[in-house]
């Protein structure tokens, strides 16, 4: 697919893009050993990998996993990385699509000690770096960061929230996370702990099918209202990261524009599906 960016360049200005900027490690093929597997939600697993020769990764990057069958047939899919930093420990969280080829294997079949081929780290745009130049406004001020996650789309955003906390970064961070039911929250304990530990990180959950008992609003497609109520106002010029299924991202991004957010401040990662 081709891709839209949000960078302002104008064809009529004949703008020449700047030289490549690369602040993230270079991608390569690596052998990963599965060191832990953990049920994340009723449909998802968390895989902890130790990746031989991994150069570290920035929060928000992804990798490709390549599976090879005995007859040489291969299948490759992309997965966001829930961890960041120089460590060779890499955390993934994979949601099982019932008819999928790769995700049921990763969720149900993979066990501790297995080896996987991975290529990465990949992606240099959907990333957040503490105090990085990427979060500065044109005037050089640090801009608040709004994260909007749908389902497994929380994976790279969780990495950002964790990197933010680990760096003691004071940039205001807010995450709006849409899930089907309370059982479907990825990194639930970690997210609650991050929200409890720091005034600079705030978590808002939206339930689309079933809420916890006593929740003030009914479940359903209340994303639009939640978005209007919970995201950092457009006037504060937040940098917004949206991640989830294609349908979720399309919907949220178009609502954000209606709410007055600048298209150039919205970065998106689409996982596929609708």
């Amino acid at each position: 697919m081709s891709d839209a960016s949000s960078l302002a360049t104008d064809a009529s200005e004949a703008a020449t893009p700047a030289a490549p900027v690369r602040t993230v490690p270079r991608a390569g093929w690596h052998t990963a050993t599965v060191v832990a597997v953990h049920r994340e939600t009723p449909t998802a697993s968390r895989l902890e990998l130790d990746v031989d020769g991994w150069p570290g990764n920035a929060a928000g990057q992804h990798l490709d996993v390549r599976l090879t069958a005995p007859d040489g047939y291969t299948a490759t899919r992309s997965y966001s990385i829930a961890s960041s930093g120089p460590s060779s420990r890499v955390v993934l969280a994979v949601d099982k699509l019932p008819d999928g080829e790769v995700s049921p294997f990763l969720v149900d079949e993979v066990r501790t000690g297995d080896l996987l081929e991975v290529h990465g780290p990949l992606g240099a745009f959907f990333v957040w770096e503490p105090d990085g130049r990427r979060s500065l406004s044109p005037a050089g001020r640090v801009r608040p960061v709004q994260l909007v996650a749908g389902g497994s789309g929380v994976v790279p955003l969780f990495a950002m929230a964790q990197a933010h906390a680990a760096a003691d970064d004071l940039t205001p961070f807010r995450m709006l996370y849409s899930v089907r039911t309370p059982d479907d929250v990825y990194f639930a304990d970690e997210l609650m702990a991050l929200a409890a530990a720091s005034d600079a990180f705030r978590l808002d959950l939206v339930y689309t099918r079933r809420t916890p008992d006593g929740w003030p609003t009914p479940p359903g497609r209340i994303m639009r209202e939640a978005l209007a109520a919970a995201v950092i106002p457009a006037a504060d010029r937040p940098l917004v990261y949206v991640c989830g299924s294609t349908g979720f991202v399309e919907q949220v991004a178009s609502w954000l524009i209606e709410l007055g957010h600048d298209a150039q401040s919205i970065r998106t990662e689409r996982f596929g599906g609708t």
Partner: protein
Amino acid sequence: MSFITRGFSGRSRERDDRLPPGQTLVHDFPVLSAGPTPEIDTAEWEFTIRTETGVHRWNWDEFMALKIDDVDTDIHCVTHWSKLGTSWRGVSLDTLFEEVETEQEYVMAHSYGGYTTNVPLDELLDGKAWVAFEFDGEPLDPEHGGPARLLVPHLYFWKSAKWVRGLVMMDQDEPGFWEQNGYHLHGDPWKEERYW
């Protein structure tokens, strides 16, 4: 360094030779974009080609009056999906460049919304590229790049700039948006030119 993955058998053995390495056949039409989908009105749409000597412009009506090709082709996205036998309608870049004189050999495609991607000119001529405005008999959806996108099917699909608004000729190859963000300068799916 490839090795067999314990316990993996894969879904299907039908390996179509139209599928480049590392690609999976899909029947829907996934979307990859770095930002929101822009809405562009054809009344305001214009397409330009800028060269060392000046700018060529077409508005929507002028564009629709050009020779229109039917294109049947396979498309390959760097995120590992391919779609076979897709049908498009659009204007060949050969048609557009009939009116354009240039010595410059490289092209930066620019899109509404700010996206850019680089392609050498000779990879856009000789029936290899179009500005497409119909997919499967329907006007192209905004999500997929409507009203018009570049269609360069022999390269990974990020080169087929959605919401295209113009081409700027350059003396040297320069990285566009995804290319600056780690994607390959060229992007041939048969050579798996995904990242650099």
